[in-house]
C-alpha cells in the first residue's frame, strides 16, 4: 500500500509551519509521529497534497513545570512520556496510559499532540486529558488560543481545531498532592483500541472523597467526560454503593457502536467494569 503523491515540507519553526498551512489551505495536513496519518494515507483514506512534518520543531518537544501547570509539548512521544521523571512524580496517570497504547515501536513515534488532536474516539489520551482538566494551546495565523480538553471533541475526527491551526502544547493544572488515579483499558490484544476504557482521578480527606473526575474512551463518537459519575462520588466514602451509582451514571452516557470488539450492550457493560476498577484502584492509591 503506497500513499498518493504529496509534496513534503519540513518547517524549522511553528511560524514557518503555520505559513505553509496558510499557503496550501485544506490540501495541507500536519504530520507529527505519523502513526495514525500514514496508515490512513496508505489506505488512501487521507490524500493530502502537502504534508507538513513537525519533526524538527524541538520547541514542541519539552516537558516542563510552570507555576500551577505541567506543560507538555505536542511533539513529545509516548516513549518520552513514559521515561519522564517529572511526569512520573507529578502526573503518573500519563505513564500508566502510555504503556497501554500501541506497542514499543509505535510509542517511539506516536506523540501526545497527535493522540489528542487526531479526534479518533479510539485514542486513549483525550479521556485522560478530560479528567486532568487539561487544555490545549493552539497556534493559528491570527495568534494563539486555548481550548479545554472537555470542550475540544465534536465527533469522529472532528475537533475544535480549525483549518490552518496547530495544537502546540498540552497544559495540565498541577494535581493535588496524594491524588489517586487510574486508567483501565480492556483491549483484545497489544496495539488494539479499547473495547472500553475509563480514566479516573480523585482525592480523599479523612475517608471522604473530596473531588473526583471520570471519563470514558471509545464508547461514543467522542471521548466522554462523565461529570455525573464523578459528582456522585464526591462526599462519599467511595464504598461499593457509591461506586455502583457512579458506574450506572457513566454507563448511561455511553453510546458505543457495535464492532469487532463486541455488540453495543457488551461494550457498555465493559465500560462499567472499567469505571468500577478504575475508581477502586484510584481510591487505593489516594493518600
Amino acid at each position, binding site marked *: *500500500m*503506497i*500513499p*498518493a*503523491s*504529496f*509534496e*513534503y515540507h*519540513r518547517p524549522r519553526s511553528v511560524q514557518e509551519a503555520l505559513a505553509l498551512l496558510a499557503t496550501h489551505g485544506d490540501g495541507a495536513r500536519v*504530520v507529527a509521529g*505519523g*502513526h495514525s496519518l*500514514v*496508515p490512513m*494515507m*496508505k489506505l488512501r483514506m487521507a490524500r493530502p497534497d502537502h*504534508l507538513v*512534518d513537525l*519533526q524538527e520543531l524541538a520547541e514542541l518537544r519539552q516537558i516542563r513545570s510552570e507555576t500551577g501547570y505541567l506543560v507538555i509539548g505536542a511533539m513529545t512521544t509516548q*516513549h518520552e512520556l513514559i521515561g519522564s521523571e517529572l511526569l512520573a512524580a507529578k502526573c503518573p496517570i500519563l505513564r500508566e496510559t502510555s504503556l497501554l497504547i*500501541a*506497542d*514499543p*515501536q*509505535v510509542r*517511539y*513515534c506516536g506523540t501526545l499532540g497527535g493522540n489528542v488532536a487526531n479526534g479518533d474516539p479510539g485514542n486513549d489520551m483525550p479521556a485522560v486529558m478530560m479528567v486532568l482538566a487539561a487544555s490545549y494551546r493552539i497556534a493559528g495565523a491570527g495568534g494563539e488560543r486555548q481550548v479545554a480538553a472537555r470542550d475540544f471533541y465534536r465527533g469522529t475526527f472532528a475537533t475544535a481545531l480549525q483549518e490552518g491551526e496547530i495544537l502546540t502544547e498540552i497544559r495540565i493544572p498541577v494535581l493535588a498532592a496524594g491524588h489517586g488515579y487510574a486508567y483501565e483499558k480492556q483491549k483484545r490484544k*497489544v*496495539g488494539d483500541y479499547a473495547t472500553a476504557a475509563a480514566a479516573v482521578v480523585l482525592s480523599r480527606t479523612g475517608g471522604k472523597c473530596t473531588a473526583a473526575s471520570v471519563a470514558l474512551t471509545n464508547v461514543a463518537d467522542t471521548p466522554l467526560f462523565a461529570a455525573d459519575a464523578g459528582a456522585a462520588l464526591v462526599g462519599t466514602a467511595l464504598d461499593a454503593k457509591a461506586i455502583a451509582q457512579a458506574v450506572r451514571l457513566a454507563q448511561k452516557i455511553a453510546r458505543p457502536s457495535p464492532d469487532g470488539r463486541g455488540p453495543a450492550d457488551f461494550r457498555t457493560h465493559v465500560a462499567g467494569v472499567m469505571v468500577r476498577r478504575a475508581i477502586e484502584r484510584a481510591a487505593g492509591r489516594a493518600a
Partner: protein
Amino acid sequence: MSKMHLKLKVNNRDVETLTEPRTLLIHVLREQLGLTGPHIGCDTSHCGACTVDMNGRSVKSCTVLAAQADGATLLTIEGMASPDGTLHALQESFRTHHGLQCGFCTPGMITRAYRLLQENPNPTEAEIRFGISGNLCRCTGYQNIVKAIRAAADTLASVKEAAE
C-alpha cells in the same frame, strides 16, 4: 510529483538515493538499497517484521515515509554482525537457542531486541515479553525468542565486564 534526494546513514555507510517522498522506508531499504533483511509482513504496523533502528529508536519501516526518514541514521539486520563476519551476540543467541523457525520475523525481532537491550541491559522475562510485544512470531510461541534475548543480555554483560 518531484523526486527528492534522500540522504541516509545506513549500517554506518552514507547513502543517497532518488525517491518520491511517498515511498515507504521499507521499500527504499529493500528495493533501492538492496537490504532485504527487513521484511514486509502485514504492511499495517502490527507485525514488526519491518522493524529497523532509526535514530536510536525501533521503528516499523512500513509506516515511515521516505521523506520523514531523510537525514536519519539507520541500523538493519545487515549491520548487526562485525565487518569480519562475527555474528552479534543476539544473532548468535537466536541460533543457539533456536529462537526462530521459519525466520521471517527474525530480522525484526533481533533489531528490536538490540534497542531493548541498549535501554535495559538486564531485562526480566516480563520486560522482554513487553519489549517485543510489537513483533509477531507465528512459529515459535516466543519461548525460545525470550530465552535467546535473555541469554544475549548475559553474553553482552560478560563481554562488558571483561572489557572493564
